[in-house]
């Protein structure tokens, strides 16, 4: 490496630092988002089993030609328990499998929770639209299952 190369590298580094400063001034993390991320600590839940997102129509479905505004279909899986969710403009339409009653909380963030119940067939609905990040916390039998956080 000769001196010129070193000098050029040094100028690159200075420019990167300049960009870092510019980003801190012109495009910083919004303060409210940092606050929400700090509060998100409350969401850590070692007792619950996580139901992983195993199907998402946005990435896994083959698009139907000409179909517009198809509902978003999500499947979450934790061992033998499966939760199918359809996200529509009106709310959520869900199915717990194997069919069983469940207490369900719809989480919208560290501070937002709504409760509902799945009937004996494992079906549940919400009557208000879900927007942004959400997770479902299900109590079935003696177990708590939480779906992975996903954007509606």
């Amino acid at each position, binding site marked *: 490496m000769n001196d010129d190369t070193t000098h050029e590298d040094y100028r690159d*580094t200075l420019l990167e630092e300049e960009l870092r400063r510019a980003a801190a001034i012109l495009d910083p993390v919004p303060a409210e988002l940092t606050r929400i991320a700090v509060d*998100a600590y409350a969401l850590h839940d070692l007792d619950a089993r996580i139901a992983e997102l195993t199907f998402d129509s946005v990435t896994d479905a083959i698009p139907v030609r000409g179909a517009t505004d198809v509902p978003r279909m999500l499947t979450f899986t934790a061992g033998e328990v499966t939760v199918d969710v359809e996200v529509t403009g009106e709310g959520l339409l869900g199915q717990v499998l194997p069919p069983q009653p469940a207490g369900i909380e719809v989480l919208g963030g560290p501070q937002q929770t709504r409760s509902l119940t799945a009937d004996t067939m494992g079906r549940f609905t919400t009557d208000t639209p879900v927007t*942004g990040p959400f997770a479902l916390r299900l109590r079935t039998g003696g177990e708590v299952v939480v779906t992975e956080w996903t954007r509606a």
Partner: protein
Amino acid sequence: MRLGTVPSAAYDDLPYTRGGAVDRAEVGALVQSAVDGDAAAWKALVEGLSPLVWSVVRAHRLSDADAHEVYQTAWFRFAQHLGRIREPDKAGSWLASTARHECLKVLKNLRRLTPTDDPQLLDRVSEDRTPEESLLDSEDAAAQSERVRRVWQEFEELGDRCRQLLRVLMSSPPPSYQEVSAALGIAVGSIGPLRQRCLRRLRARLDARGAL
């Protein structure tokens, strides 16, 4: 500040310290403390890694609403998986990769896509002043401030690849190349050469405008 196992020759050869709040080598220990119930450790993780997550989101040019949601989703999921993350010292890469996948989903879900060619961005700063900006004001900073805007404007006009890479590289503290790789889905080995090309392209643009 030291950086654990980063194969970033471009940095290591230089008289250049990566400043920042969180030593990346401590990230694993902070994750463990947070798992054990230490809220201060969680806060330190947020403060150290939040700019990285934000940079990933911004690099993908989402609308503000989508950007906010993706940022939150990444952090909520991180909190949720906290005790189950296999390599806690790579939490930055975990978050960057999660944010990237959520960004790609947004971009795929075209009906929600509204690109942020946000002409307000440069003007908006005057309303919501960051500490850095107040500092700029307090000095005789008209020229400096002009330079910052010029650099930013030229950066925004770079091609997608360079703009993406630089937007992630400029997060604070400087990300490791593994984190950049996770953020953009490019090989660690290609980051150094690409970084050099992009920074020189930007320098050439600034030179051409007589801004140096």
